[in-house]
């Protein structure tokens, strides 16, 4: 159950060479573009762009297999419960009704619903490659520098840096505690009843938190002694200067974002692309 938080590997691709700030900004613009649009043509175009980038950044399928399975499970359950809760939502959005299949009661499959749910499926799926590229090509130590470079307070950025730095340590603590408790006969698998699982989870959480509280004292004293937070700004060892290709990448992502909005405003006149009228 060991998850490496950022399974970052140092490669030399155009994506890896971009600075962390660039990757964070482009990631946000591109995901917001697909989040906003419900136009399947835009979504598919962005998705193809994302897959090309995935190719360029030389990410292997084995690196993202587990994630893909999680995402697929999420998308399928989301599709099922959307249909279960709102089988007529597509009709409501697109304003027409073409029935394909009668199932039972109010659960009739319409072309509008099918179109809405397909769009939604691709909409959510198309964001994933961007997240993967961002996570796997950004040096974790550079991440805090990028956050602060975007204008976020350096104290908050430093908290994020601490999270990334101490995640493996705390994960190791968690495993030690969990195995020690299991050696004493604690059952945390599906065999135990729900109430027992809840109680047993607590027996792992309590020592984990109290050992962390001690660690917090220790680290904050060490940081105070080194004068952390004395000044309003700070510099970052890992910060990269923005180069020509960084500005290019930012411009491309902003353009994609603007085009998406313009298509919605002027061509579709709403967030949805309606092929039924």
């Amino acid at each position, binding site marked *: 159950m060991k998850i490496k938080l950022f399974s970052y590997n140092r490669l030399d691709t155009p994506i890896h060479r971009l600075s962390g700030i660039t990757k964070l900004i482009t990631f946000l613009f591109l995901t917001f573009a697909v989040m906003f649009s*419900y136009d399947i043509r835009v979504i598919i175009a962005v998705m193809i762009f994302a897959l090309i980038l995935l190719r360029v950044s030389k990410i292997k399928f084995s690196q993202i297999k587990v*994630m893909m399975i999680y995402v697929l499970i999420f998308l399928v359950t989301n599709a099922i419960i*959307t249909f279960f809760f709102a089988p007529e939502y597509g009709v409501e959005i697109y304003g027409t009704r073409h029935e394909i299949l009668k199932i039972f009661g109010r659960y009739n499959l319409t072309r509008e619903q099918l179109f809405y749910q397909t769009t939604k499926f691709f909409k959510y799926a198309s964001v994933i490659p961007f997240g993967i590229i961002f996570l796997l090509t950004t040096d974790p130590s550079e991440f805090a520098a990028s956050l602060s470079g975007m204008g976020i307070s350096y104290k908050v950025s430093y*908290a994020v840096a601490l*999270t990334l730095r101490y995640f493996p340590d705390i994960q190791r603590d968690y495993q030690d505690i969990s195995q020690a408790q299991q050696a004493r006969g604690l059952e945390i698998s599906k065999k135990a009843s729900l109430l027992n699982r809840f109680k047993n*989870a607590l027996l792992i*959480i309590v020592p984990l938190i109290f050992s962390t509280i001690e660690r917090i004292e220790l680290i904050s004293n060490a940081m105070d002694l080194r004068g952390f937070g004395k000044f309003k700004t700070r510099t970052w060892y890992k910060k990269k200067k923005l180069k020509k290709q960084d500005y290019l990448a930012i411009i491309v992502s902003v353009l994609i974002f603007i085009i998406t909005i313009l298509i919605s405003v002027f061509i579709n006149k709403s967030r949805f692309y309606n092929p039924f009228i």
Partner: protein
Amino acid sequence: MKKYFEVNTKTIVATGLGAAIFTILFMFIKVPSPIPETSLQTAYGLSAFFAVVFGPIAGGLISFIGHALSDAVQYGSPWWSWVIASGVSGFIFGFAYKRTRVEDGEFKLTDIVTFNVIQIIGNAIAWLIVAPILDILIYAEPANLVFTQGAIATVMNSISAGVIGTLLLIAYAGTRTKKGSLSKK
């Protein structure tokens, strides 16, 4: 009011490490529920505890960073509406900071009630209002679906924050020196 939003080195470190535990609990220690896409997240017990001990800024950031990070690791991209709602819930839990006597080594009935009232208000605002509305605005999900999910999340997270948060606070109060525990002879 100012002391609520004070940020010192300890707040920063608590936020960083708290978010790391939040991420781990969020991914590994959850008790599944029969309703799809929801589960009893023990992580909210942790964010409630840290919010009471370290204040609203720490509480809000812990759940925001922790949720965003675990979403990113598991699904490749954060589900922004719920990540923001998580942050809001942690922030509101923080209003129990300095309202209880936990730092004085006491966490009795009145403190437990104060904490739980604030905690339930926080969860209700985050999951019944913020999360569904953002889901509709950002992702255009069907309203009845997101409000049902929100209601379930409110109940589940209130249980998690209430039970785990209260127990952690009682245990933590035990480690603090009691006020007036020294007397002159």
